[in-house]
């Protein structure tokens, strides 16, 4: 047997297995949305006819327009703010030299190791004293300065040609204008990749919104889905239908930005 062929076959087999493992949960989710709860428990893996029944139950149980709107506001506003704040920070960290720059940056990275649960109580006290509990402001603000995204932008900025900045300076642009008219367009792949990461994180954010959003009409879809799973007799069909809906926005954003995402991840600057 041809060893090259054999190796190739092995690689394909492994990749197929990996693909199956990644794709099956999605398949299961979509199939589940079309089956009745009892069939799902029985482990039925073929499409069923309960899609409309599940949809009807879902919309009857959940105030979907309101809940999805809440999620959308938090995710979109949160993503926009995070990108602005964190990319500015990343740009600043790379562009401006200072004696304490590296120490400050190291400190930031160190902060990454503090689990969110440890900050929750003091954060809650802060927002409670600021009378912001149960507002979207409280849900969004703590995520806006994302250390990971600052780090990501700083790394990407390393590839930003300093000649461009110098040229812009000679043309008379100030630092804000350079950032706005030169840096941002050049780094669009980085922004695209960051958008996907941040949007997903915001859309799926669970713990903090759970604590700080208190009334039912302010909750996000992630919180509502979690509550549906814990019923004594969960309706899995309805639940999976809701999960499909909740997955759609991230999916759409990903496909829209997919090409740029790959570029961004590779650190390409055009």
């Amino acid at each position, binding site marked *: 047997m041809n060893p090259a062929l054999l190796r190739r076959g092995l690689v394909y087999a492994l990749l197929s297995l990996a693909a199956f493992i990644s794709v099956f949960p999605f398949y299961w989710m979509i199939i589940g949305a079309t089956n009745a709860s009892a069939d799902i428990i029985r482990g039925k893996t073929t499409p069923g006819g309960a899609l409309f029944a599940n949809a009807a139950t879902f919309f009857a149980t959940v105030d979907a327009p309101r809940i999805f709107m809440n999620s959308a506001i938090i995710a979109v506003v949160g993503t926009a703010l995070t990108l602005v704040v964190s990319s500015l920070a990343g740009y600043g960290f790379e562009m401006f030299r200072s004696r304490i720059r590296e120490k400050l940056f190291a400190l930031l990275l160190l902060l990454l190791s503090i689990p969110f649960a440890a900050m929750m109580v003091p954060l809650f006290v802060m927002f409670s004293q600021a009378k912001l509990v*149960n*507002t979207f402001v409280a849900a969004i603000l703590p995520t806006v300065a994302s250390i990971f995204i600052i780090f990501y932008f700083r790394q990407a900025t390393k590839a930003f040609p300093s000649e461009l900045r110098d040229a812009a300076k000679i043309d008379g642009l100030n630092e804000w204008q350079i950032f706005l008219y030169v840096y941002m367009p050049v780094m669009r792949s980085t922004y695209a990749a960051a958008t996907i990461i941040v949007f997903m994180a915001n859309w799926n954010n669970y713990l903090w919104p759970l604590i700080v959003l208190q009334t039912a009409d302010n909750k996000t879809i992630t919180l509502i889905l979690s*509550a549906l799973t814990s019923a004594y007799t969960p309706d899995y069909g309805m639940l999976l239908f809701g999960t499909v809906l909740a997955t759609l926005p991230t999916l759409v954003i990903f496909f829209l930005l997919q090409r740029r995402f790959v570029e961004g991840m590779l650190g390409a600057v055009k």
Partner: protein
Amino acid sequence: MTDMSTRWKRTLCVALTGISIVTVAAASASAGEISVWVWDKAFNGDTMREAGEIYTKAHPETTFNVDDTASQDDIRAKLQTQLLAGSTEGLPDIVLIQDDIAQKYLQSFPGAFEPLSDSIDMSVFAPYKVAAATLDGKSYSVPFDSGVTGLFYRSDYLEEAGFTAADLENITWDRLVEIGQAVKEKTGKQLLDLDMNDTGVIRMMMQSAGEWYFNEDGSLHITDNAALKKALETYAKFYQADLVKPVSGWAEYTGAFTNGEVAVVPVGVWITATIKANADQSGKWAVAPIPRLDMEGSVNASNQGGSSWFLLSSSDNKEEAIDFFKTVWAGDQDFYQDILIKRGAVGSLLSAREGEAYKASDEFFGGAPVWQNFSTWLGQIPSVDYGTFTAEVDAAVAAQLPTIIQGGDIDAALQAINDQAQQQMQ
């Protein structure tokens, strides 16, 4: 320090008034509206809504806002964070808490919950429920659903193997193992399904003997706990006799018995709705008293789960809430009949058994007066002190189960449970 924080608060308040005006309205309930946190829309949610409607009918100025959009874990996380943060803003007036975690809240957050035994006669409720939320002589909860256990079984399988209902009356777990072996021989069905991450069966065995993981002073009661030892031995017997269908997770657990793969389900009464959801199995099910441990002091009655209503001290509607508890939850028998029929909720009001619904027989369970039976067992459940670290010890027990079912030494396992739990409790 206090001065500092008040001034800081005031400054922030002023500075941020502008922001809060444009943001969504705060969560605090309006006067006369009693807010309640529950975790299951169909069960405790709708039950509380109905209770609220009954009260509002007589007292139109008091309305209810029942929020069922958080899971039980979520409610715990929120409650804990806020009580730790010392902020009661947005907390409900009434919150539902599972009995086995009640002591943890009462002891960790003194003053957070309102003592109710001064204003409400607790003797009308099942004693074990009241005991679960009693601290230093005061009771802090109005008992809701009971987790009174029964041995749900497939009467058709048992019959095929030659057993009648009488053969399951007042038996021990050891006898159940023998029955299970006969049933398996005749029908090929496993006796029961067990999830090794769930210590429910072990706990109900232990409580049937009036024992729990802790001594009166809160110290661990593991290595010298005869009931726990017996329970672990019994658990191992199920596996050694090859009578278990192993499952993982709630869906698989309920799936195994709703699909007819096992012969019996020892479980709390709240499972009734799940079992009865399969209408095609009507008449094929029956309920026997839960088996007892083969030891002195163990009875054929126990408990699994169940929860109670707690009134937060921060509530602005305490008087109304207490009056509501008194008139509906501690007094309205018709209400208890209704929630039993509609939602299969077995409440903890002892006199409810005198009502029509409790006396009725159920065709699904072969025409037996199942509710009357459950309420008889309810009164017999031994009271235990669930302590503050039940969840920690549960985890330690679950960690030893794989060894135990393979015939591991039980005393060594008890020691290991003790050590792990001890570590967790520090």
